[in-house]
């Protein structure tokens, strides 16, 4: 937690320091007030006191209260500023860090966890700073100060207050001890309720087809009832807290008075009035003590949560990026990709995902990779845009090892299209022109790209055509439409090298065909790298590489492979009949 505070600047620390002083001042003022209160009490109590004295003391007390308010306002201003600055800075830092992380680290954390860390966790820590920071400073100071003020009054009262504090804290402690583990259970049960509901919603067709509505309802009711029972237990336990808290406070005041009676009774006449004043003051101080202990207890309740969040943030911030930027911004060749004895495994894995892969593709050529799931196709092409680095061997683009390139320079050569097309919540046009390749993307280029990618067919039907909005995650268009826009984006980039990572999977054969056909016409100069499942998609590539368990088990054209590669033939036959293959 405190490590994160480094993201604050010097001036913020200065504000923090001022806040600290102001809080101390505020505590002093708050504790000064009971003095005036007792003064006023004595004055009112004593016959013959002058109104002027009461007014003066009342004025002082109001002054204290107002000064305390001013302190609180200024502190509040600083602290809310600090917490907002803090969350802004940490969020920025974290965001930049995540942008720098390589795919490997992102996978380690998982995207959704990174999102939670950048959003929820930061908010969590910010909340703690906004609320907790003041309390954290204020509570102990108030507690100690108030205790020291009342300690010399009478040990009986002090002992009584101590007992009250102990009862309160132990009640809170015991309840938390009982309830906290069950909170986790509740969380799990809520997840379960969610899961069963989601199950019911996503499987609604299956459920109806099986007439299994009742089965689902029974399943749900079981979880629902367990959840309700656990919730009731928890809340019942919590229901004890409030009455006990009030009881302790009320009884404390009452017993302070009762003890006061005995103290007054056994004292000299001259001390009686003083003891009476003390009694009134003590009851208000003891409330301060109790409140500050409660405040401390609350901090310790929210601190662990904030701490967990802080640790999760730090985990990301401390992560070293495994992909280091190079500095080469020139290349020897154009449009070539070469693998030299490339092997790859995840850094902490034992199994190699790719073994000893070598090939070269030249400008204007098309190379395709095929193989079953887990054969390493995607891992292979992920090495080109450096989502991962090769464990052994070299990956060369335009004759230069990709590790040596300045990443921006390398990326400007590449048009990468993933299987799951990424859509941004923006217009179609902006989705297509997304990113920066150092060139201006004209309107003509955009419509050309949309046309080639076969996206025109549906974009023209959209309400505002190219200006139509794509919802977040592209939920308002279909998977195939997303893929086509993703491809249009790559085209608009005018890259030297196209990389299609199974990016035609959601297209029907006809669209698939048309797209590739048009693309070929448009980009004669560009090198194309395709990963696919369908034989039809890759049949006419200049070179096809068949992968099996990370090894290259065949390389050549469609015709060559049909003859010499058993696996290739097997795959082909599973999709097309012998006769169809002949016809092709």
């Amino acid at each position: 937690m405190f490590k994160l505070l480094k993201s604050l600047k010097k001036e913020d620390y200065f504000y923090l320091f001022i806040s600290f002083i102001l809080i101390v001042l505020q505590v002093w003022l708050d504790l000064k007030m009971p003095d005036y209160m007792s003064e006023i009490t004595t004055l009112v109590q004593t016959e013959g006191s002058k109104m002027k004295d009461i007014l003066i003391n009342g004025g002082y007390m109001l002054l204290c209260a107002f000064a305390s308010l001013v302190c609180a306002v200024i502190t509040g201003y600083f602290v809310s500023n600090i917490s907002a600055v803090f969350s802004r800075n940490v969020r920025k830092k974290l965001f930049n860090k995540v942008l720098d992380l390589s795919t490997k680290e992102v996978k380690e954390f998982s995207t959704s966890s990174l999102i939670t860390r950048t959003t929820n966790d930061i908010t969590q820590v910010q909340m703690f700073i906004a609320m907790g920071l003041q309390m954290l400073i204020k509570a102990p100071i108030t507690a100690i100060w108030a205790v020291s003020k009342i300690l010399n009054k009478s040990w009986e009262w002090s002992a009584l207050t101590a007992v009250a504090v102990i009862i309160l804290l132990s009640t809170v402690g015991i309840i938390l001890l009982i309830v906290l583990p069950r909170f986790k259970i509740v969380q799990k049960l809520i997840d379960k309720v969610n899961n069963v509901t989601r199950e019911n919603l996503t499987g609604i067709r299956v459920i109806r087809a099986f007439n299994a509505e009742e089965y689902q309802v029974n399943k749900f009711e079981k979880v629902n009832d367990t959840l309700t029972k656990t919730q009731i237990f928890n809340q019942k336990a919590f229901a004890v807290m409030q009455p006990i808290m009030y009881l302790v406070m009320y009884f404390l005041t009452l017993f302070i008075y009762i003890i006061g009676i005995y103290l007054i009774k056994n004292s000299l006449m001259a001390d009686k009035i003083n003891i009476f004043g003390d009694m009134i003051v003590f009851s208000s101080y003891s409330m301060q003590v109790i409140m500050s202990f409660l405040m401390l207890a609350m901090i310790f309740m929210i601190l662990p949560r904030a701490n967990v969040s802080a640790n999760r943030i730090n985990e990301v911030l401390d992560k070293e990026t495994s992909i280091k930027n190079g500095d080469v911004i020139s290349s020897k060749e154009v449009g070539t990709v070469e693998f030299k004895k490339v092997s790859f495994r995840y850094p902490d894995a034992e199994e190699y995902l790719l073994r000893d892969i070598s090939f070269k593709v030249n400008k204007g050529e098309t190379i395709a990779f095929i193989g079953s799931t887990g054969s390493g196709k995607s891992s292979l092409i992920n090495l080109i845009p450096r989502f991962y680095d090769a464990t052994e061997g070299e990956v060369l683009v335009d004759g230069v090892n990709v590790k040596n390139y300045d990443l921006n320079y390398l990326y400007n050569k590449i048009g990468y299209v993933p299987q799951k097309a990424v859509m941004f919540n923006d217009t179609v046009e902006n989705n297509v022109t997304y990113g920066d390749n150092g060139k201006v993307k004209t309107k003509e280029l955009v419509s050309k790209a949309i046309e080639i990618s076969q996206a025109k067919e549906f974009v023209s039907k959209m309400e505002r055509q190219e200006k139509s909005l794509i919802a977040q995650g592209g939920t308002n268009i279909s998977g195939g439409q997303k893929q086509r826009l993703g491809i249009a984006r790559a085209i608009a980039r005018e890259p030297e090298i196209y990389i299609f990572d199974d990016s035609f999977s959601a297209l029907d054969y006809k669209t698939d065909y048309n797209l590739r056909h048009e693309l070929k016409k448009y980009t004669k100069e560009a090198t194309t790298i395709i990963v696919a499942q369908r034989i039809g998609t890759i049949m006419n590539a200049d070179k096809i590489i068949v992968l099996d368990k990370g090894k290259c088990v065949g390389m050549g054209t469609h015709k060559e492979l049909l003859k010499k590669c058993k696996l290739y033939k097997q795959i082909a036959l599973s999709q097309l009949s012998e006769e169809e293959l002949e016809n092709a």
Partner: protein
Amino acid sequence: MPRKPIRNEKAKNFKSSMLRLFKELESFKYFIVIGLILAVCGSVLSIMSPNRLSDLVNKISDGLKINQDNLELITESIESSMSEDTLKETMPLILNINLNETAINNIMTSSNITNEEKNIFNNFLKNSDANSEEFISSLKDLPVSILNIILPTSTYNGVLISTEEKIELLNIDKENIHISDTLANALLKDIKVGKYNITPSEQAEFINSISSINSENPTEIYAKIDKMPKSVRNALEPVFDMKGIKRIVIFLISIYLLSALFTYIESIIMTLVSNKFANKLRSRIINKINKLPLKYFDKNQTGDTLSRITNDVDTVAQSMNQSLATLVSAITLFVGTIIMMFKTNYIMAITAISASLLGFMLMFKVLSKSQKYFIERQKYLGELNAHIEEIYSGLNVVKAYNGQESANKEFDNLNERVYNANRKSQFLSGLMMPIMNFIGNFGYVAVCIVGALLTMKGNITFGVIVAFMTYVRLFTSPLSQIGQAMTSLQTTAAAGERVFEFLDEEEMSNQDNITKVLDKSKAKGNIEFVNVEFTYDGNKTPTIKNFSAKAKNGQKIAIVGPTGAGKTTMVNLLMKFYEINKGDIIIDGVSTRELKRENIHSLFTMVLQDTWLFDGTIKENIIYNRENIPIEKVKEVCEIVGLDHFIKTLPKGYDSKISESDSVSAGQRQLLTIARGMLEDAPFLILDEATSNVDTRTEELVQEAMDKLTEGRTSFIIAHRLSTIKNADLILVMKDGNIIEQGNHKELMAKNGFYAELYNSQFEL
């Protein structure tokens, strides 16, 4: 992690939503009424306590005052012993004046007495008459040497009184009494005050110290009292009304205990009610889900329904649990405090209320302003989070397209906005507590000053001030509680609205008057489509128009077409998930309009593209809702689909759990759903082929299993891959939601239409 949608926290119609909520709570009304009554009782009790507490303080402060009665008793007794009348009688006796011949002679002849003194004495003898009043007072003017002789030591009441003391007695100053023990013994009697006996000498001490007080400062007086003899001190010592105190303390303790008990029972009741209510709402929603037509789910997102069942129900339950009772007890407290204040003292009440109101006006101003920033903050935070989510989930693309810079720019922009809204909303909301404190203190001082003024005038007692100190506190807290409860009720109304909106959705058509039953075991498997027309809600043109076709049992009907062509529409109609608008679908001579949905479902086995498995064991997933299926039967179907081997390699075999992340591949999941379908022995089969997510070799396995499943059944197959459906008896070609061609492979190829184009495209480049 599902992202919580940013929701509108204000209900569209607060009143109707709340009314509906209360209507729904009907069955809990007795509990709620009891709970609320208890809340009111608790509040009433906590209003009662300050008054009693102030009584207690009054009693204690009474214990600070010296015992006036005893003081009067003592002074009266002393005064009566020393009054002029008494002294007139007692003085001569005490003085025992010796003015006989011998004494006069002694004086006249004494050499120790000067002539001058003798002259004074002579004058005295001549002028005074032993019986006159002035006689004794004139004695003190005589020289000491003479008095020594005429006032010899004598005894009075058994007390030996010396000449000096007699002189002293003569010189007693009424204004400043100071008497010796001996004299006191002679003059005063024992005084009985209660159980205390005050001897004359103690009385003398009392008189002596009282007479030396010349200040009005009570502390000084009290300090003097401390120095008085014990018996006097005891008599004057302030007395606590222990009986009264005890009564108040017991009363207070019972009030506190009772109010704690009430609060406890009330919160238990509310907890029970709110959780039971939430439970009921949840099961109503789940039941509703199963009664809604499928079109609802095609229109609404899973996440939305999900958030209604969890977030919204939770919100309703929680805020009901907290705010309802809080609101009632806060209002009671508020009104009650006002009443009590006015009852106690109206001037003080006006003071306390106006002092608090001043502060509250300030507070509401701050509150309304901060509300604005909170909404802003929520909005910007939502936008920022959406941006983060977008960038993170597309990180590879962002990088490969050099989009970091634009992502950063957008991020900074949003981050700055969040920062500003954060700063302001946090600051303003942070002001609440200090302002509340100030209001409390301000009220306190106001009450004290006005109270002191009134106390001095004697209008009120000190206890009233103490009571008002508490009233100020009691008065300020419910106001903010009411404010909080109101906002929380707003949220409840909004959430409740969403829940009830869902519960009020139109359900599937009633089928109570359908009596026909087509027995699964007797069904043959013939199906006929007669001029079927179907239009999706809101669409103008029908999706399926004038569609007629016939299939005999055991035949294979394939549905092909590009993605999004509406192939699932056919499934929806077959299964009566949607009802056709015109025409008819006839199964074994019976119109599906005359059959219950459940009946139709039982005639079909359906295996869908999305492999729907749930958290549970493999066995549970295969058997699903069917009862009395022996494990052997499960093993049998698994063997048929070729899963047996895989399942045996799992550590727990058929009892292994299936969860998302497990080693069950997409293909195996598909096989599991096929096995599930196989258990069902229905005459019809629908296969929504899943191929795009399965690798080719698994695909072969799946295909084999599917082929086995189609044996002897009338089957509908949705296919992407055209090679597998070439031998289908009927191929329906769909495009843009319409069936544009139908026939077998040969016929369609001969037609050279869309199907032929589609078929040929897979071999081209």
